[in-house]
């Protein structure tokens, strides 16, 4: 048979058409796609066994218990510790991505001096020289740690001063310190025993205090109930996350919180809803109504609602003496379910003075410290990046992440997440004392030193962090009080030796004092305080002390619009 050109063309066309109905081209296309999608440079996780360890988050002062999954010596996942009696397994959303922070593109990777590259020996020499030439001021963000003790020792030995910047929760307790002789470091909010909580803009369900503490309690006692066991009244100008989930949301004019608190106190006293305690505020109910945007009837109704279910605890978003005074009128100071004194400090390994050093020295503790006559200022990594010391002194700024422009002369890379040993004293808002040790679970990804480590290397007479922690563990054992919550729950009195107690603490256990009757706390209010306008942060994540949000958190928040974060944190 003769094959013509036409036959050849027909056969070719038929073969081409027939091939399309076979799997061959599609398989080839699929394989090419898969091959081109799996480039060798695409990272794949290490195939290694997972080890689970326990530690504590030290990115903010609340020290939540962490269960960390480790692979090949690196953290690969974070979850809460259900045995922790304070957090009960809950964490803030940022903690779940915190293990990636150590590789954040904005991680401080080297010593920098006025924009140029420098080195640790040069920084060491510069700080040694500066501290010998004049006063050194050391600024801390999380007081009470072993590292804080080192910072304070160094400052005082060199004739300088040690200062602390407090967070909003601690500042909210300041008025009670003024009206009593009890340092605010020994005070806390007994949220668990309150029946009504009146929040003046405090983000109670959005990261306030120890993030999991109140949210867990609220979920059990209040969520979705029409007549809840715990009544959460949110007084706030906007419908925040806490307001959205509260039992009652009272929308007021922003900045009128103090006036409304005074107006509520006046109604409570005049209508004899509570026994008379303290002075009557000068603000009338109509003044409060005019200022807050509510009606007088609404304020009276609100006062009756608050008085109906007590203990009722008023909480401010920041320092606000008028709201603190409302608690005195409500009889919610020094009682269960109110503002409580945690201990008398004779059963806590960290003295109150160490946790609260500024209040005993001068009045500059609470605001931005004014620094005059200093030769050097050392800013610890625990101080929020936004803090800029007003000084002409040489500034040594420790930080794990670079938050953007800085006025510091020296930028010094500090340990990141779980990269160094530290201890965790009681959180600022806690109702009971606690103590924990956060072991370093991973090696630093860059050459880092903490402020305390550098100061110890300058002055070898300072007690090291390790020794201070050792001493504190021994003190807990010596007192034989409280309970240790680790893999098992054990009263300290049943632990055989100080070494065993320290070993458990260094492996992620937490020590808690007995939740006994609150220690005596008497506040004397001679006149109604001035009506301050408290600052209010619109978003808790924006107020996070660490300069950077975890990359996954910032990515997901921006992709979902769930939260707005400052632009500098979105990188």
């Amino acid at each position, binding site marked *: 048979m003769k094959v013509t050109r036409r036959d050849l063309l027909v056969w070719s066309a038929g073969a081409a058409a027939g091939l399309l109905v076979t799997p061959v081209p599609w398989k080839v296309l699929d394989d090419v796609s898969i091959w081109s999608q799996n480039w060798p440079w695409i990272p*794949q996780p290490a195939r290694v066994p997972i080890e689970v360890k326990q530690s504590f988050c030290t990115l903010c002062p609340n020290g939540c218990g962490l269960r960390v999954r480790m692979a090949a010596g690196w953290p690969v996942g974070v*979850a809460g510790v259900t045995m922790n009696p304070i957090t009960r397994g809950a964490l803030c*959303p940022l903690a779940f991505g915190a*293990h*990636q922070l150590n590789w954040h593109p904005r991680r401080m990777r080297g010593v920098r001096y006025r924009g140029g590259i420098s080195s640790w020996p040069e920084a060491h020499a510069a700080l040694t020289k500066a501290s010998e030439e004049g006063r050194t001021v050391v600024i801390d963000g999380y007081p009470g740690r072993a590292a804080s003790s080192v910072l304070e020792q160094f400052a005082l030995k060199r004739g300088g001063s040690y200062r602390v910047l407090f967070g909003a929760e601690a500042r909210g307790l300041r008025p009670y310190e003024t009206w009593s002789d009890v340092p605010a470091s020994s005070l806390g909010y007994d949220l668990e025993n309150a029946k009504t909580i009146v929040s003046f803009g405090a983000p109670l369900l959005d990261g306030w205090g120890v993030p999991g503490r109140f949210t867990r309690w609220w979920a059990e006692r209040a969520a979705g109930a029409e007549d809840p066991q715990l009544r959460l009244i949110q007084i706030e100008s906007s419908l925040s996350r806490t307001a*959205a989930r509260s039992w009652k949301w009272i929308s007021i004019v922003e900045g009128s919180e103090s006036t409304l608190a005074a107006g509520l106190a006046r109604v409570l006293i005049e209508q004899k809803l509570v026994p008379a305690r303290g002075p009557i505020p000068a603000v009338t109910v109509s003044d409060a109504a005019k200022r807050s945007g509510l009606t007088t009837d609404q304020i009276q109704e609100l006062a009756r609602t608050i008085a109906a279910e007590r203990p009722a605890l008023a909480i401010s978003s920041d320092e606000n003496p008028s709201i603190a005074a409302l608690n005195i009128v409500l009889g919610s100071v020094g009682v269960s379910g109110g503002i409580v004194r945690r201990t008398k400090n004779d059963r806590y390994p960290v003295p109150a003075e160490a946790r609260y050093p500024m209040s005993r020295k001068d009045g500059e503790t609470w605001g931005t410290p004014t620094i005059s006559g200093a030769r050097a200022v050392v800013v610890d990594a625990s101080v929020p990046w936004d803090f800029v010391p007003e000084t002409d002194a040489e500034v040594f700024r420790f930080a794990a992440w670079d938050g953007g422009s800085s006025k510091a002369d020296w930028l010094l890379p500090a340990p990141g997440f779980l990269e160094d040993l530290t201890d965790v004293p009681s959180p600022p808002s806690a109702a009971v004392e606690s103590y924990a040790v956060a072991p370093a679970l991973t090696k630093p990804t860059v050459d880092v030193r903490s402020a305390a480590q550098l100061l110890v290397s300058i002055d070898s007479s300072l007690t090291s962090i390790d020794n201070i922690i050792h001493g504190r563990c021994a003190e807990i054992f010596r007192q034989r009080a409280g309970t240790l919550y680790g893999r098992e729950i054990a009263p300290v009195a049943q632990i055989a030796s100080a070494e065993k107690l320290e070993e458990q603490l260094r492996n992620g256990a937490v020590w808690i004092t007995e939740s006994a009757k609150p220690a005596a706390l008497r506040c004397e209010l001679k006149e109604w305080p001035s009506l301050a306008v408290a600052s209010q942060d619109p978003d808790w994540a924006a107020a996070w002390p660490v300069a950077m949000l975890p*990359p996954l958190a910032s*990515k997901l928040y921006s992709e979902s619009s*769930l939260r707005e974060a400052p632009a500098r944190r979105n990188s």
Partner: protein
Amino acid sequence: MSARYGMVIDIDRCTGCGSCMVACAAENNVPTLPKATARTGLTPMLVRRVSNGREGNARRESFIPILCMHCEHDTPCVEVCPQQAVEVDKATGIVMQMPQRCLGCRYCMTACPYHARYFNWWDPAWPAGMEKSLNPGVSVRMRGVVEKCNLCHARLHAAKERAAAAGKKEIDPTDYVPACVEACPTGAIHFGNLADSNDPVWQEARSPHVFRLLARIGTEPKVYYKSKEPWVRALAESNTGNEAEAQHG
């Protein structure tokens, strides 16, 4: 006996913190780069902010976590996939997505009534060194495939391995908990076997105020929601992508 894993999410407990989203992404090795938008991002668990549409003091808001609903009946994504890259696991009821089979046609994304599927537009990437933080139990998915919630299937595998090592045929129910459930600080997400009448989730799925999204289309989702707010329950029958009623975030 085959299981039917599912969830009951108590919307009245959800504070919209986003812990579930971050924990899910960390568990499943969602890449941090590149930055995407609400349309192009990968959010297997997405918390949406919804409101009653009113303003002022009458306004009420809630948060609804949206994930793959693991539809039991006429699963839309399974029906349309030309590659058999999606299937309902008979042993668990989990709707599985197999990226190795996926052609990237995105029919499943179009078919999904819950907008719970996401396309990988880019090669997965992390900042230098961050690949050390990846979860060893979960493979990184390649560019050009669709992905979604698989109820942390790697955790189910791990639980099975532990059970086998202990000489047991069945896993301990407390040993298999998806990352979002573990992370929720208010305990709003309850997970369990909907086929087991002794499981608390089975009971809860039959309690008052429970509803499912778009129940009228008959796909029998295994993710249930719970709310005492009538306006929240009313939203369940509307289109979840309707921006007038439900905003992102």
